[in-house]
C-alpha cells in the first residue's frame, strides 16, 4: 500500500462520507427539534433513489428536475407520516413513537417492493464515467460530482437555517418550544418542516447515490444504521457533528475495506456504534448532557 493509494482511499471515503453526512444530518434534525429518532430515515433515502429512477430513468426528465421532484415527493411523504403516525403519539411513552417510525420503515419498504418490484435497478452514470488521474491518484469524476453536490446542498441548508427568518424560527422551535410559540412561531408548521426537511435531505442522498449503487428495496436498513452510527459518532443532535461523523464513517469504512476485508464493511457501522456507546456516548463533538426531570 503506497501513499497514492492511501490518498485515493481517503478521497473515495470522503465522497461516500458526504452521502452518510446527509443521512446523519436528517437524523440530527429530528433529534434536535423533537427528540425523535426517525428509524425510517434509510427507507426515505431509498425512496429518494426510486424517485430518481422514476423521474430520470423511466420518465426521462432532466437530472436537476429529477432531484427536485423526488426530494419534494419524499418530503411530502415524510410530512404525511408525521401527521398520520407520529403527531397523535407525542404525549405517549417515547417507545411508542420509536416503534411507529419502525412501522413507517416497514410500510415504505413493502410499498416500494410492490410498486417497483424486488429486483435491483442499475442506474446509468449521470455526469461522466471518466476517471481522473492526478499523479497516480485515480478518482472517478462521478464521485467528485456527487460529493460536491452533497456538500453544496448541506451548505445551502445550513445557510437557510442560519440566515433566513423562516430558518431562525425553526431553530427557535427546536431550542425551546414554548418560548418559540410565544414569539409567534407556528409549531405545527415547524414540526412538519422538520420531518419534511429531514426526509428531503435523505432523499437527496438517495438520488445522488443511485448512480453508484444497485438500488433495491432492502438498502433502507443498512443506510439507517450507517446514518445513525455517523450521527452518534459526531454527537446525536448536533448539525456539525452529523457532518463530521458522516465523513469520518465514510473514510473509516474505506480503510476497513482496504486493510481488513470487505465482508465486515456493513457490520462496521454497528460495531462502531457499540464502541462509541462504550467509550463516549455523547459523540465526538458534544459535551455529555445530564437529563433533567
Amino acid at each position, binding site marked *: 500500500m503506497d501513499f497514492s493509494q492511501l490518498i485515493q482511499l481517503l478521497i473515495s471515503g470522503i465522497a461516500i462520507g458526504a452521502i452518510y453526512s446527509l443521512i446523519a444530518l436528517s437524523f440530527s434534525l429530528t433529534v434536535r427539534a423533537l427528540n425523535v*429518532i426517525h428509524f425510517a430515515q434509510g427507507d426515505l433515502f431509498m425512496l429518494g433513489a426510486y424517485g430518481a429512477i422514476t423521474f430520470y430513468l423511466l420518465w426521462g426528465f432532466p437530472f436537476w428536475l429529477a432531484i427536485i421532484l423526488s426530494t419534494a415527493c419524499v418530503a411530502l411523504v415524510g410530512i404525511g407520516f408525521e401527521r398520520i403516525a407520529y403527531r397523535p403519539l407525542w404525549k405517549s411513552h417515547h417507545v411508542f413513537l420509536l416503534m411507529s417510525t419502525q412501522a413507517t420503515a416497514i410500510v415504505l419498504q413493502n410499498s416500494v417492493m410492490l410498486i417497483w418490484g424486488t429486483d435491483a435497478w442499475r442506474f446509468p452514470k449521470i455526469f461522466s464515467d471518466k476517471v481522473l488521474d492526478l499523479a497516480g491518484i485515480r478518482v472517478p469524476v462521478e464521485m467528485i460530482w456527487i460529493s460536491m453536490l452533497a456538500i453544496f446542498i448541506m451548505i445551502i441548508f445550513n445557510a437557510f437555517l442560519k440566515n433566513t427568518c423562516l430558518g431562525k424560527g425553526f431553530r427557535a422551535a427546536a431550542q425551546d418550544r414554548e418560548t418559540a410559540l410565544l414569539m409567534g412561531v407556528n409549531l405545527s408548521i415547524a414540526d412538519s418542516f422538520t420531518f419534511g426537511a429531514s426526509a428531503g435531505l435523505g432523499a437527496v442522498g438517495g438520488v445522488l447515490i443511485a448512480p453508484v449503487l444497485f438500488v433495491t428495496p432492502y438498502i433502507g436498513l443498512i443506510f439507517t444504521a450507517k446514518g445513525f452510527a455517523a450521527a452518534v459518532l459526531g454527537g446525536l443532535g448536533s448539525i456539525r457533528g452529523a457532518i463530521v461523523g458522516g465523513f469520518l464513517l465514510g473514510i473509516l469504512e474505506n480503510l476497513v475495506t482496504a486493510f481488513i476485508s470487505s465482508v465486515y464493511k456493513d457490520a462496521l457501522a454497528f460495531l462502531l456504534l457499540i464502541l462509541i456507546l462504550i467509550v463516549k456516548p455523547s459523540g465526538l463533538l458534544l459535551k455529555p448532557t445530564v437529563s433533567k426531570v
Partner: protein
Amino acid sequence: MNRGKLLKAIGLLAALLLIPLLMDNRYNQHIINMIMIYIILGMSLNLCFGYTGLLSLGHAAFFGLGAYASALASTKLGFPFLSCFCLAGIAGLFFGIMIGLPTLRLSGPYFAMATIGFNKIVEMVLLNWDEVTGGPAGVTNIGGVNFFGFPLDSEYRYYYLLLVVTIILYILYRNLINSHFGKTILALRDNAIAAQAMGVNTTFLRIAIFSLSTLLAGLAGSLYAHMVGYVAPDAFPVMESITLLILVVVGGPGFKNGPLYGAIIIVLAGEYLQVLESYNMLIYGGALMFLLVAMPSGIAGLIEAGRFRYYNKRSPGSYLREVGIEEIR
C-alpha cells in the same frame, strides 16, 4: 386464592388438557402448539418492552439462537432434551447480557438500533457459517423428546409438554411482575430519573430484565426446534422481531395477559393471511401504525377498561390512571 378463582383455574386447566382430544387434524393442533410458543415469546417481549419500555427490535435473534443451540446440542453432541432446553436458555441469557452491557447504560434509541443490528448479524452468521449452522438448509433431524421413556412424537403429545412449560413460565412471569422487582421496573419505565433518585440501579435492572427476557426467548426457541424437527435461518429475520412486537402491542403492552391474546391473534393471522402473500408485511406495518395510534393498550387494555365500565364505580380513564397505565397510552 378464593374458591371461585380456584374453580375457574381448574376449569380452564381441564379445558386446556382436553384440547388435543377434540382436535380432528394435526394441522390445527400444530397451530395450537405454535400459539403456545408465541405465548412464551410474547411474555418474554412483554417483560422487556411492555413493562420496562425497552424497544427490542431483535428478539427473533434470541429465539433463533435458542433454537440453534438446542438443535446443535441435540444433533452434534447427542444431548437429551432437558440439557438442550437448559443450554438454549443459557445461550439466550449470555447473548442478552452481551448486547445489554454496552447499550443499556443509556436509555432510548441506541438499544433499539443495536438489537436490530444484532438480529441482522445473527441472520448473516446463521446463513454463512456453513460448518456449524448448515447454511441456508439449517439443521435437520433434530431428535424428538423422550419423557422418561414415553416419546412425545406427535403434535398431540408434544402439546402437553408445551402446556406444562408454558404454565410454569406463566406463573413465574406473573409472580415476577407482582413482586417488588416488577414494581421497580414499572417505575423505571415511567420515569427513569425519578426511579434512580429513589435508589433504583437503573442500568443493572435494565440489563437484568433484558437478559431474563432473552432467556425466555431462548427457551421458546428450544421448544420450537424440537417441535418442528429442523431449524433454518429464514425463520428468524428482523421481520419476525417486528411480528413479535405487533403481538405484544395487539395483546396489550404492560398487561400481564396481553401476550395470551396477542399470540392467538398473531398466529391465526399468520396462518390465514398467507393468501395475501406480498401484501402481508405491508398489512402488518400498517396495522402496527394503526394500533399505536388507535388502540395503544391493546386487547388487554380494552378488556380491563370494559370490566371496570361494567363495575362502573369510576370512569375507566381514572381507573387506568390509578393503576399507572395512563402513562403507556
